[in-house]
């Protein structure tokens, strides 16, 4: 039975992404392995250090930027993170200068908000009500 151990987002700059995902969002680096001109750079939640890793993958392939731009224009998130309190987390992140394209809103059984990760992606925060 397969398990989800790594998921990925395409980032425009791995070092900038490392800083945003750790310093701002609060993840911690799990693996940082040099691979030629790129790195195998993954982060995890400090609450679940052995949980699913997020790979911060370079977006240099010519197909990736147009794909990301089209998703961002329509407000579509690249991936989803769960938090205990979306409104409190949105307040904290806004205070840190993070831009939201969707303020916290109840959508059925969840409360969701969408932020810009500054690396070319939108990220949805999700709280189970």
């Amino acid at each position, binding site marked *: 039975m397969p398990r989800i151990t790594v998921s990925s987002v395409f980032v425009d700059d791995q070092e900038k992404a490392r800083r945003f995902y750790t310093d701002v969002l609060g993840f911690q680096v799990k693996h940082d392995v040099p691979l030629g001109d790129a790195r195998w750079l993954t982060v995890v939640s400090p609450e679940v250090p052995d949980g699913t890793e997020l790979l911060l993958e370079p977006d240099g392939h010519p197909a990736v930027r147009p794909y990301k731009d089209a998703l961002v224009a*329509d*407000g579509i*998130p690249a991936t989803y993170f769960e938090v205990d309190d979306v409104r409190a987390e949105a307040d904290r992140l806004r205070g840190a200068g993070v831009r939201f394209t*969707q303020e916290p*809103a109840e*959508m*059925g059984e969840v409360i969701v908000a969408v932020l810009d990760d500054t690396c070319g992606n939108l990220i949805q925060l999700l709280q189970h009500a």
Partner: protein
Amino acid sequence: MSDDLFKALADPTRRTILDELVDTDGQTLFELCGRLAMKHGLSSSRQAISQHLGVLEAAGLVSTRREGRYKFHYLDATPLHSIAARWIDPTERT
């Protein structure tokens, strides 16, 4: 008065889109689709909602603004004044 206005208002999904923009003005396509699906049980595809927005925009009821890399949709109720002017205001004047 444009027939586009009445055609746009004739569709219940499009009226719901306007309701949601009254609730929160300035939404991405993604947020609108989420609200329609979760709050109203409307299972239209993203493409279908995008087409509905195009009809509303053609009727002047929705305007879109690009802010940097994002695109937001806003309600513009101005065309509805033409309805009031045609049928409501004349009776008020008598």
